[in-house]
């Protein structure tokens, strides 16, 4: 056991508490702001204790769009959910297959395929957004979940992580499987897939959040309001260039709602999330 030093323990708790306060403060303030009335939030300085209008604000935000106003936040959350799930599941499915192919097979043009996929590793969609829009529109995919989801799947981050993980799977397992007469698909299904559980979980978290947090792409390709995700909705409520005043309390309520699902996903899955990432990284 390492020595115990009282001053070090004190330092530990001080640093951690300060760190948590600093890092969680913006989130805390958002939640607090979402409990205030329009007047309370504009007071200078803004109070840092809850204001007691939470239920009212939630109701207003969720109810916005009933009748003649914008989209209800509920619908937008559902859209975000579909989009995030689509991106997470779609990306994991195509990536695990292609990583399997690249790692476990030798075939002509393997290197070419490899580089074709991995060159996309780090290029965000914002950089090629105009031409991508053109392609999506040519394919008639504007205003569809497909158009929201598939172009974002075109990146190799997940393939990369699966590849890294597969490289660490001992060759003995493969050999044993071959001796047992198991074909590649059988090996994939019975051995590789169960082993990849944590990597899949980690990727699910990453991709779900990535998908949930998309902003510019959905803004560009959805002209149908009923498809717009909640992150777009939150920014829509802020009057940045407009001439109308911003209802900050409602914006903050919507922001609180918008960050809840991804936060839940991280919190519920954090154990696999970290383990999966670290395993495949090592």
């Amino acid at each position, binding site marked *: 056991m390492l020595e115990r030093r009282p001053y070090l323990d004190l330092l530990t708790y001080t640093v*951690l508490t300060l760190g948590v306060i600093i890092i969680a403060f913006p*989130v805390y303030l958002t939640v607090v702001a979402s409990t205030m009335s329009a007047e309370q939030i*504009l007071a200078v300085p803004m109070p840092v204790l809850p204001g007691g209008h939470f239920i009212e604000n939630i109701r207003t935000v969720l109810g916005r769009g009933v009748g003649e106003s914008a989209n209800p936040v509920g619908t937008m959350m559902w859209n975000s959910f579909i989009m995030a799930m689509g991106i997470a599941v779609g990306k994991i499915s195509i990536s695990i297959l292609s990583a399997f192919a690249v790692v476990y*097979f030798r075939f002509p043009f393997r290197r070419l395929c490899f580089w074709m996929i991995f060159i996309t590793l780090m290029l965000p969609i914002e950089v090629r957004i105009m031409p991508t829009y053109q392609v999506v529109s040519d394919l008639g995919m504007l205003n569809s979940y497909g158009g929201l989801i598939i172009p974002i799947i075109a990146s190799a981050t997940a393939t990369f992580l699966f590849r890294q993980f597969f490289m660490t799977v001992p060759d003995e397992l493969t050999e044993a499987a071959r001796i047992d007469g198991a074909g590649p698909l059988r090996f994939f299904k019975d051995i590789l897939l169960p082993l990849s559980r944590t990597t899949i979980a980690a990727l699910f978290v990453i991709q779900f959040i990535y998908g949930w947090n998309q902003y510019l792409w959905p803004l560009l390709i959805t002209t149908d309001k009923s498809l717009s995700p909640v992150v777009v909705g939150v920014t829509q409520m802020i009057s940045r260039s407009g001439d109308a005043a911003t209802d900050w309390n409602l914006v903050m309520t919507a922001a609180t709602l918008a960050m809840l699902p991804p936060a839940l996903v991280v919190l519920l899955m954090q154990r696999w999330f970290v383990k999966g990432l*670290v395993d495949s990284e090592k």
Partner: protein
Amino acid sequence: MDKKVVFHSRWLPYLLLAPQLAITVIFFFLPAGEALYQSLYLQDAFGLGMQFVGFDNFTRLFTDPLYLSSFQITGFFAVGVAILGLTSALLLAYFADRVLRMASFFKTLLIWPYAVAPAVAGVLWLFLFNPSIGLIAYWLKMMGVSWNYLLNSEQAMGLVILIAAWKQISYNFLFFLAGLQSIPKSLLEAASIDGAGPWKRFWSITFPLLSPTTFFLLVVNVVYAFFDTFAIIDAVTQGGPGKSTEILVFKVYQDGFKGLDIGGSAAQSVVLMAIVVGLTIVQFRYVERKVEY
């Protein structure tokens, strides 16, 4: 770097690769090719008239001192985000590792920023630091700090680095914590018996053992700072004051999407793609070597 034991099949690998290759070709290579093509033309916003101008768009870029300074700004920004994000995450992870029982509690609290969308994060921090309505801005003023990132470039740069690092801290923290927890306690105990204090133990054992994690995170953080931070810049400074926070990705977006200069922004896209390809290769070389060890 390659598996020694592999399967053989004439068609299966292609079948497995097909979905990803198809998506990559349609939604990556096609648009990228389009960008390359457009970078050689001068055209109006609506694409009604096009003139071939050769490398004119590129020449214009690299003779524009403002574009070159955008490189510097991006570099500074990326280094700032990486250093701040990594050191503070390491600090927190180190102390969280010391209090194992409480670690998951702190982890739960520290993980939140990861879930916040960059577009929302920008809004949220604006709400704190905006010189007119921001709460922290108010506190700063009370303390006698003349806070106005709208005109003070250093403050503006500091603020966007702070926000970008904040978004990334959870991710770094989780990796560092996992890395720390995998360091055998016996090593540290042995050093302790030899009389090494916590400070010395950290630098002589912990830090070197963490270096693979640190390097990996460094690459991830730099890439993040280069490409994923545009929503933050857009929400907070829009590149200002002057051009002091205009990073490359924001400039592409600004010139192409907002300024409607299709050719010029396509040329910038091409330059960025080249940088990305470079970074990808660097990362692969590093990762490949590491796996070999």
